[in-house]
């Protein structure tokens, strides 16, 4: 049986329907484009939907906030890797972007005195101003707005249960340009070939590469990066996967979900190995990478917990008669969703901190991605890149794009990112389609599309001995071990060898020939994307010869704050090996770095002093500290998972 192909014409195709995709589609439609939005999951079912629902809104909390400050905060958090043009765009647009969620029904609490959305009472770590707005029902409230924006707008066509397989390009005066894309419509059992001059990729992250060691959506199979790389686009900072150290190791039903952050371990929380020996103290001041590294090193020495983690022991916090009750309230209120998961997953004794928690890191967010300019357009070349040499008509936004967050992401920024760059890329994509001087020529289906369609058709009915879902599990296990939170050159090389094998195995995957919802074909396509994405991560990790950001290179030192910062750029030329290079970034002035260093050392000295005190004095001192943090309300200000406030050690990293 041959799967049939349906042809369609649009100005803009948007891949993904979360925060970024829905805003891209709305903006493109508003600009007068004919828009198709393609989603493999139901519309709006994305990482945005399952997030904590905090958004960065400039000036929501203080009058003296500014674009310059917000932009600088982002670059500082990202270890100087972020591109200034992108952080500036984020800072400029954050208010309007947030209002677009509100137009579609997002309703925050209002600060009636200043007539702004009400921000959290304290600045989140790394943000030097109050500007993070929380929402009831967390990310679900945002997903209602995204869903509304897509479903309501009759100018937007949408297809769900559809896998976007490849972007189709043509060459023109040695510049590549988009002519459309190929889609597998699983619900209707068809291939859909779309002729379009603009494609916006907004299909999220890659954390499923590490499944089940992740707290994100299953659909994060690296589709964005793989599709862009196969199309010939540059990817930037692909080694920068954000791992959260304290996630569930067992029971399996909760595996990977977040249960704590460094800061919630509080003043006396420590990490222990299976023999009870302390492997990391002062946890609350540590970076996530430090915590992850301590856990993973212990696992490697054979002293890990039964499920490949270590023990987060917070019992000392609780045992103090005066400060203990304050700690328990702090733990429950600082990160309520995570504490709820801990209670359900680990049981009552653990939730009461009568026993230590078995913890293991999880993949949470992809900071790297498709290399773009401030309008989401694919760029190439040196420095911040230029559109010459990029792919004309290819855009990316949201988690799919790279260059905004560098080595670390400030809390509450990702939902805003989706709306800011979704809208920018949608507008730019519509503009490009409108101004396209050369029409997509008649009969292009015989040329640019035909290879891709033929190759895809051949997969239906492919005979073989292997199951893609089984290969996927092998890849996930190996990715964790070799390009996960801890890496070495040797492991990266091992990963490359494994990927060679997996690439060869793709032709031996069994795929039946029926067209409607062919799960084996879907598994195959996602495996193909995961393999390509893992290649990019491995190549960038090899180039990043030091520890910065969310992972640790066991065979290299920390990258000094005084060294010259660089981003990694990887690409895959057709019929050639992956190429890797560095692009240099401007460094934060040394004076600022030094100020952060002093703060960091002061904090570390304080914790040493505290730990040396006799029990009674320690208890009284801690009671005072908790009172100061929690105030009259008796509850801690909430922190965001992944945010710098949840790992205050990271606020001191330059």
């Amino acid at each position, binding site marked *: 049986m041959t799967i049939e192909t349906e042809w369609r014409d649009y100005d803009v195709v948007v891949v993904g329907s979360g925060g970024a995709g829905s805003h891209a589609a709305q903006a493109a439609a508003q600009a007068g484009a004919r828009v198709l939005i393609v989603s493999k*999951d*139901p*519309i*709006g*079912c994305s990482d945005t*939907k*399952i997030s904590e629902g905090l958004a960065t809104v400039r000036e929501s909390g203080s009058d003296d906030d500014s674009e310059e400050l917000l932009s600088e905060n982002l670059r500082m958090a990202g270890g100087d890797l972020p591109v200034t043009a992108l952080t500036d765009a984020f800072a400029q647009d954050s208010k309007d972007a947030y*209002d677009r969620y*509100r*137009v*579609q*029904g997002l*309703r*925050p*609490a*209002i600060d009636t005195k200043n*007539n*702004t*959305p009400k921000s959290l009472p304290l600045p989140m770590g790394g943000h030097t101003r109050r500007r993070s707005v929380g929402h*009831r*029902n967390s990310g*679900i*409230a945002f997903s*209602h707005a995204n*869903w*509304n924006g897509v*479903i*309501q707008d*009759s100018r937007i066509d949408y297809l*769900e*249960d559809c896998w976007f397989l490849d972007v189709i390009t043509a060459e023109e005066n040695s510049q590549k340009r988009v002519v459309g894309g190929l889609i597998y419509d699983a*619900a*209707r059992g068809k291939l859909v070939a779309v002729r379009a001059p603009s494609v916006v990729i907004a299909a999220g992250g890659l954390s499923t590469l590490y499944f089940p060691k992740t*707290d*994100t*959506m*299953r*659909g994060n199979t690296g589709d964005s990066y793989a599709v862009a790389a196969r199309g010939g686009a540059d990817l930037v900072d692909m080694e920068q996967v954000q791992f959260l150290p304290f996630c569930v190791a*067992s*029971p*399996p*039903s*909760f595996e*990977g*979900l977040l249960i704590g952050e460094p800061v919630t371990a509080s003043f006396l929380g420590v990490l222990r190995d299976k023999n009870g020996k302390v492997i990391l103290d002062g946890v609350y001041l540590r970076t996530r990478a430090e915590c992850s590294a301590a856990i993973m090193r212990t696992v490697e020495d054979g002293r890990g917990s039964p499920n490949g983690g270590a023990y987060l022991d917070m019992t000392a916090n609780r045992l103090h008669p005066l400060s203990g009750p304050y700690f328990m309230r702090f733990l429950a209120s600082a990160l309520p969703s995570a504490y709820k*998961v801990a209670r359900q997953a680990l049981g009552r004794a653990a939730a009461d901190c009568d026993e230590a928690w078995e913890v293991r890191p999880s993949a949470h967010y992809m900071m790297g991605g498709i290399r773009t300019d401030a309008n989401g357009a694919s760029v190439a070349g040196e420095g911040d890149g230029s559109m010459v040499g990029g792919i004309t008509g290819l855009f990316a936004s949201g988690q799919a794009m790279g260059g905004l967050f560098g080595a670390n992401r400030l809390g509450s920024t990702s939902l805003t990112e989706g709306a800011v760059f979704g809208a920018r890329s949608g507008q730019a994509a519509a503009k490009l389609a409108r101004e396209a001087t050369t029409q997509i020529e008649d009969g292009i289906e015989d040329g640019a599309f035909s290879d891709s369609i033929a190759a895809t058709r051949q997969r239906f009915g492919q005979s073989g001995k292997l*199951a*893609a*879902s*089984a290969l996927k*599990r092998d890849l996930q296990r190996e990715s964790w071990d070799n390009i996960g939170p801890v890496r070495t050159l040797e492991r990266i090389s091992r990963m490359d060898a494994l990927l060679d094998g997996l690439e060869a195995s793709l032709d031996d995957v069994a795929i*039946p020939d*029926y067209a*409607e*919802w*062919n*799960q*084996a074909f*879907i*598994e195959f396509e996602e495996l193909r994307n995961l393999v390509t994405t893992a290649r990019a991560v491995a190549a960038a990790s090899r180039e990043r010869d030091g520890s910065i950001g969310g992972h640790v290179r066991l065979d290299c030192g920390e990258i000094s704050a005084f060294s010259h910062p660089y981003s990694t750029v990887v690409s895959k030329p057709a019929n050639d090996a992956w190429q890797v290079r560095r692009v240099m970034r401007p460094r934060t002035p040394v004076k600022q770095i030094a100020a952060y260093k002093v703060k960091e050392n002061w904090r570390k000295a304080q914790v040493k002093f505290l730990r040396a005190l006799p029990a009674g004095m320690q208890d009284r001192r801690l009671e005072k500290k908790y009172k100061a943090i929690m105030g009259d309300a008796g509850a801690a200000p909430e922190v965001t998972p992944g945010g710098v406030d949840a790992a205050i050690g990271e606020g001191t990293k330059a």
Partner: protein
Amino acid sequence: MKVEIVTRRDGQDAIVTYDYQLRSEDEKPMVLDVLLQAQATEIPDLAYRYGCRARNCGVCTVDVNDKPRVACRARARDGDRISPMATLPALSDLVVRRDGVARQMRGRLANAGQGNDLNVEAPDDYHALTACIECYACLNNCPMHARNFDGGLPGDMPAGTAPDPAAGYRWGNPFSLLKLQRIRIDPLTSDAGKAAALDHAVELGLDACVGCKGCKCGVGIDLMGKVVRDMVTAASDRQPADTKAD
């Protein structure tokens, strides 16, 4: 632990008995754990939806013993029968086609629009409604939704007579009413917008709610109290001839 999994490939249904291997003596697996293990062992291309594994994304709903459950947070028990949600057409194994529901809402969600002062708070009931994760458990036993399938289920319809989901279903359901009620209680919706939302509810078959003993939400939203009753009352106050309960 033995469970039955209803599979469907290329239009052919079969029931597979799967013996779940507990990973520890005291493990109490969720239905999703069973599906993941079945895929990892005996049914490598088992088709099923899931997403966040934390009851937030709403995509993993299946029928367990003929009742809709969010698979990632429903405990599996010996003898359970896992089948696709019966209220929507099955595509493959446990995957159903969902988009006929959302599509019926096209053009029916007029929002606040540009130019409004957005700095207005919504009432508590508004936030009660945005807790909806769109799991579609509420379609179960809904007489309004059943009208799409001659009062029954999509699987009962003679071949070729089922409505095309791509066109959007003609008749509504508690989810679509929830979306409309949300618009009605949004302080930024104009009076005309509120009236239009009620019109849409009536068009979608709100009269089916009259005398219905109620719908059940997959995440515990009080659908009767916060959605249906208010709409039925408003509609009957406005259109006594058409929709009033007798």
